[in-house]
């Protein structure tokens, strides 16, 4: 059963990356455009109520790709909107997502303290 969960995470996560690769290769999009599209898709899927079932099914295969960033932003906004109405759309947004962004900021700062730049982008 455990092995099966790992396999599902591998396949679903890999498949989302394949979509990203096709956007880059076939439609000649930059990585920035590709990731932006995937984030928007994740937000829309959560609006349709489809992303949570995907997480239940695939675990980290759905939470690790960047689509989950759009999902959790929407999820926080919807949860607060349900409780507090209009204001909740703004206040709830970062409730669920905060860990990814705060981790990136904190570790980015620590990395800048520790590591020296090695020429062209690390």
């Amino acid at each position, binding site marked *: 059963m455990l092995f099966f969960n*790992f396999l599902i995470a591998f396949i679903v996560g*890999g498949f989302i990356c*394949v979509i990203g690769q096709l956007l880059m290769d076939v439609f000649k999009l930059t990585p920035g455009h590709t990731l932006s599209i995937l984030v928007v898709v994740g937000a829309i899927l959560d609006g349709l109520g489809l992303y949570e079932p995907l997480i239940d099914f695939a675990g980290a295969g759905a*939470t690790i790709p960047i689509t989950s960033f759009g999902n959790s*932003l*929407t999820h926080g906004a919807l949860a607060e909107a349900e409780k507090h109405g209009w204001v909740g*759309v703004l206040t709830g*947004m970062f409730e669920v997502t905060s860990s990814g962004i705060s981790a990136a900021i904190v570790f980015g700062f620590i990395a800048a303290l*520790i590591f020296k730049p090695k020429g062209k*982008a690390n």
Partner: protein
Amino acid sequence: MDPQEYQQLEQQMTPPTPYLKNVLKAFFVGGIICTIGQAITYLYVIFFNFTEQTAGNATVATMVFIAMILTGLGLYRKLGQFAGAGSAVPVTGFGNAVISAAIEGRTEGFVLGVGSNMFKLAGSVILFGVASAFFVALIKLILVSVGVLEW
């Protein structure tokens, strides 16, 4: 040489994109990164009393931490050259974008360099994530208050 000729020449000179190879590499590397994420999720669930829902946030933070180490050592860039979207799409790619911009910014100082440049690459992801989440939530809120949908 007129622009059309140049374009033709450019098309002849550019090597064809190895679609299948790129897709396979993206699939395997992306899949492996997600499998590692799954393993970290289980570690949090088994040893730190997280539920599978709450472990997601801790997992993302841990993955970004790993991305910091790999980025600092210059290894994530090499992985990216090999894997393309396979290493860009997982959250480690987001972490890498922020962290590599932060390290690069160091030459211009901590305020104007690190602080200002940190989200140079990842900023678009945050912008479009937040903007689309806002509109999706707004539309759903309107549909619910009109009575078309229920929460």
